Each structure stands twice: as structure tokens, then as C-alpha cells.
């Protein structure tokens, strides 16, 4: 809800005061930050999905445009790998909450390796798929959507790398594991987005 909630001094009749601070807000900063993040991501992916629906539904472009084929099975295996990585991520966080440091380290390492496998497989898929972004609207949208998601995976992998290094250096404990919590949220978000991308681009 757009609203301002600060009080501004208008007139000091008898005494001057220092500037007033910005007071309460109806939306807590942490919630507002997450809403802005989700909002920006929705707009980012939404723009690409709009292009996808325009090309496929409004323009009626065949999907995939013959003679091209989408590697549905490879992408399905890749999806399974990425979904599994979310489970290992969850296991890592549950482990650190219970004080199981090796569970945390193993969970993060497995998550990182599976994320890396996903990205490498996607790169290999690009080299073997048989079309390039310049080969029509279908190919452009395919590369844009999967590439945008791949960029998110890359960012997630970077976060995971630092989380794993920190875990092996003993930076996290049952009381202090905020870094794992936030990284986990991001990784699950990336996973959710891939399921949406895979379902719309490869299945429907």
C-alpha cells in the first residue's frame, strides 16, 4: 500500500527542534525488501514470458518451429537434478539447525555440485540443440527464457560457493546461520522458476 507515514514539523511556534526522524512504516523493511525482490523478478521473467505467449499464442508460431526439436528428456533429467538440489539444500539447513556441521557441509556441497551439473548440462544442451538465437522467434525466446534462468542459477551457484566455503571454515552454528537461510530461499526460488520455465517451454 503506498502511503507515507512521516511527520514533518510545519511550524515551530516557541522552540526549534532538530529534524524529525522518519517514523514507522506500515510495511516492515524486511518484508518490503522481499516484496521488491519478488516484484522485480516477476517483472523480469514476466517480460520474457509475455514475449513467449505473444510469439506462441498471438502470432501462432509453431512450438518448436520445425525442423527443430526440444531436448525434453535431457531437460527432464536436468529438472530432476535441480529439484533434488533443493532437497539437499533443505537438508543442509535442517542439519545446521540441529548442530550437525557435517550434514550442513555435505548438503551444501551436494547442492553446489548438482547446480553446477545443471548449468553444465544446459550449456551442453545449447551446443547440441541444433538452433541458435538468430533462428527465428521460437529460438530467440527459448534461449532468452532458459538463459535468463541460467543466469539466476549462476548467481545462486556463486552464493552457494561462498556458503560452502564458509561452512567448511566453521562460520555457521545452530544459533547463527542467517547466510544459509537467505541463500536457501534464493535457491528454492530459482528452482521454482525453472519448474515454471520447463513446464511452459518444454511441456505445454
Amino acid at each position, binding site marked *: 500500500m503506498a502511503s507515507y507515514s512521516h511527520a514533518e514539523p510545519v511550524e515551530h511556534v516557541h522552540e526549534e527542534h532538530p529534524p524529525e526522524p522518519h517514523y514507522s512504516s506500515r510495511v516492515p523493511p524486511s518484508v518490503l525488501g*522481499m516484496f521488491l525482490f519478488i516484484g522485480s523478478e516477476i517483472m523480469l521473467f514476466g517480460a520474457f514470458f509475455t514475449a513467449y505467449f505473444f510469439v506462441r499464442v498471438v502470432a501462432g508460431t509453431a512450438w518448436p518451429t520445425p525442423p527443430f526439436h526440444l531436448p525434453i528428456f535431457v531437460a527432464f533429467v536436468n529438472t530432476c537434478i535441480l529439484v533434488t538440489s533443493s532437497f539437499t539444500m533443505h537438508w543442509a539447513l535442517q542439519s545446521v539447525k540441529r548442530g550437525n556441521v557435517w550434514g550442513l557441509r555435505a548438503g551444501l556441497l551436494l547442492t553446489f555440485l548438482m547446480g553446477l551439473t545443471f548449468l553444465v548440462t544446459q550449456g551442453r544442451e545449447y551446443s547440441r540443440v541444433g538452433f541458435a538465437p538468430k533462428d527465428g522467434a521460437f529460438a530467440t525466446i527459448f534461449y532468452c527464457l532458459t538463459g535468463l534462468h541460467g543466469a539466476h542459477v549462476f548467481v545462486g551457484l556463486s552464493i552457494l560457493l561462498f556458503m560452502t566455503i564458509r561452512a567448511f571454515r566453521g562460520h555457521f552454528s545452530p544459533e547463527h546461520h542467517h547466510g544459509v537461510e537467505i541463500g536457501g530461499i534464493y535457491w528454492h526460488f530459482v528452482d521454482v522458476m525453472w519448474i515454471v520455465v520447463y513446464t511452459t517451454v518444454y511441456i*505445454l
Partner: protein
Amino acid sequence: MRNPLRSEAESFRFLIAVIVGALVIVGAAYLNTWLGVAAAVLAVAGIVWWLKDEPVPGAHDAPPRLDSATPPGTHRVLVVAAPGTSSVQVDARATEIVVVVPALASTVESLTGAVDDRRADAEQTAAALARQLARDGVRVRAEVGADDPVLAVDDALRTFGADEIAVAGDERLVERIRGRATVPVSQV
């Protein structure tokens, strides 16, 4: 609606819901593409409905009532008045007064940020009331508050410890402010 990414555990739960939805879509799309599209619409609607009805922790808890403390020998009065109020009377014991006039704006004005006129009205009222209440030995300050009178009181009490609150408004508003503050609230 509940934010599905509030914590790792909640985002993991959201992921599970999305996986289930995706499996339904894939199953339907295997039979027919348009059936898959219909399943996708239903799945998205189902997830939105689920998030909409999920209780947000603490959302229905009443906020703690605000207490305030004042230095000995002072009597501070917080005056809350709607824009357009021409005059108010406050306790003669008052040594410090803060006049807060909320910049009441419609929902559309709030959403579009077109609140300049409402703020100007509130500023005029606040300044006029401050002039009316000013007298020797009394410090008076005028402020424009939030667009909700209760929130304006909430803000003011965080920086101005009041001994009492004088409200130039209807009984319903007085009751709402009584629910937020521990100090005496009177209708003026």
C-alpha cells in the same frame, strides 16, 4: 496473502506445492496440450488461493499499546485534529503541546501519491491550531501526520511522550486511539 519466501522452510514448502502443480500440468499436457493449459490455470489459481488463505503469523495480533513517559513538572498534550478543524481546547495544565493533523487522503490519492493538496490542507490546519494554542510558557509544535489518524498518533507518541491525547474527532476515532495508547484519551 502470505509471502511464500518468508523463510527457507516456507520457500521449500512452496517449492513442493509448485512441484505438485507441475506434475498435474505435465500429466494433463500428456493427454492434450490445451488440457495442460487448463491445468496450469487451475494450478496457479489453486496455489494463489492457498497462499491467500494461509494465515500470516502475527498479522491478527493486536499491536502492543504504546506507553509514554514525560519528565517531572511537565504536562504534555498530544492534539489530533482532522484537516479543517478551526479550534480546539486543551487542558490548562499543558506545558507542551504537539498538534498532529493527519493528511487524510483517499485510497486513489494514496496509491498514486497525489497527496500534495491533502498535505497542504493538513499543514494549514496544523499551523492555525498551533497559533491558537500558543501562549506564554507553553511550547507548541505543529506536524503533518500519516494519512491514518491512529498511525499519526502512533508516530507522534514515539517521539513525543504525552500525558494525554486530545482528539478532535468522532467517538469511533477516539476509541481506536484508546486501543493504541495507555495514556488518557479525551474527545475535544
